[in-house]
């Protein structure tokens, strides 16, 4: 278990260290590491976890790390995963907060974002691509996808409401 904990800490440390662009841009990293490399969750469990991370308060990535860590080794696992995730960024923030002016003028920081901003788009669609097959079970899921997308983008319903509508629809369709 000690080795698993160490490997989990390092995994989340790695994700946190390169996770530019917030929760959604982190998803392909989470998915590749958690589902493909380590097999800590399968793709369906991964989607269920994301749903839970969405409907509960707090940052999605913290929620996800806590959930995965807890599945592996209860409270200690949750603590190890969450600490790993924030470890590198927190050190960077505390170093930079005392040198804010220098960082703002840094050409390196400005430059890499020319590449990273479009990368977020590609990263997010890559995770849509890989999870979509798992969410698709029959024609009803395709119809539900279109309806929910219209409600979210056209009618601007809150994401939590979208998940609740999907939950009720799932119950009605599949029970």
């Amino acid at each position: 278990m000690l080795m698993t904990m160490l490997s989990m800490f390092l995994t989340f440390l790695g994700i946190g260290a390169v996770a530019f662009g917030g929760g959604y841009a982190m998803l392909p990293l989470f998915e590749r590491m958690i589902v493909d490399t380590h097999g800590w969750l399968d793709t369906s469990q991964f989607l269920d976890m994301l749903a839970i991370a969405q409907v509960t308060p707090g940052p999605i990535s913290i929620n996800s790390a806590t959930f995965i860590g807890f599945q592996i080794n209860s409270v200690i696992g949750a603590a190890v995963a969450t600490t790993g995730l924030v470890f590198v960024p927190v050190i960077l923030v505390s170093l930079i907060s005392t040198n804010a002016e220098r960082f703002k003028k840094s050409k390196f920081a400005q430059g890499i974002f020319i590449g990273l901003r479009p990368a977020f788009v590609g990263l997010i669609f890559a995770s849509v691509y890989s999870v979509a097959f798992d969410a698709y079970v029959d024609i009803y899921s395709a119809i539900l996808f279109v309806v929910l997308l219209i409600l979210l983008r056209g009618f601007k319903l809150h994401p939590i409401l979208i998940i609740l509508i999907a939950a009720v629809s799932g119950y009605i369709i599949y029970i």
Partner: protein
Amino acid sequence: MQISLWRLFTSFLKIGAFTFGGGYAMIPLFEREFVHRYKYIKEEEFHDILVICQSLPGVIAVNFAVYIGTTLRGKKGALASGIGVTLPSFIIIMVIAAFLYQYVTHEAVVAIFQGVRVAVVVLIFSAGVKFLKQNLHFRGIFLAFLTFTLIAVFYVHPFFVIGLLGILGYLIYIVGEVNTHADDNA
């Protein structure tokens, strides 16, 4: 007047516990609490912090909390703020995770999650569309497509792709800067 560590902790705890919709949704609440309500941070300073936290890797809400904590009370402040903003998620998720898998084989739960998974794909897709709209120029679309193809089609590891795109961005920036200076001299 210096803010107490306890107030720092409870302010972030409160925001962490009651903000739905991820880290970005917390930012206006941080602003209300620390800029408008307690006036510990000036408006301009807050916007600087936002820009810096967005250009660092990690969890934006935690980065923000640690930044504000460090600015106001140093290392202890960072600790109080960071733990404050994370603790509610941590506890709530553990409670849910502990109970979830006892019911996961129940047919109603299976049916509900079948629907919910579709909603998650919709939310991720929609976030992608939102980011895409901010990059609607040839270079942006090309780099986004490159990222997608490398990860989804060629199965290149995202770690590697993020590094590659960062380097590409930096090179584009350097080349652009050299060109501007060349124009200045002409």
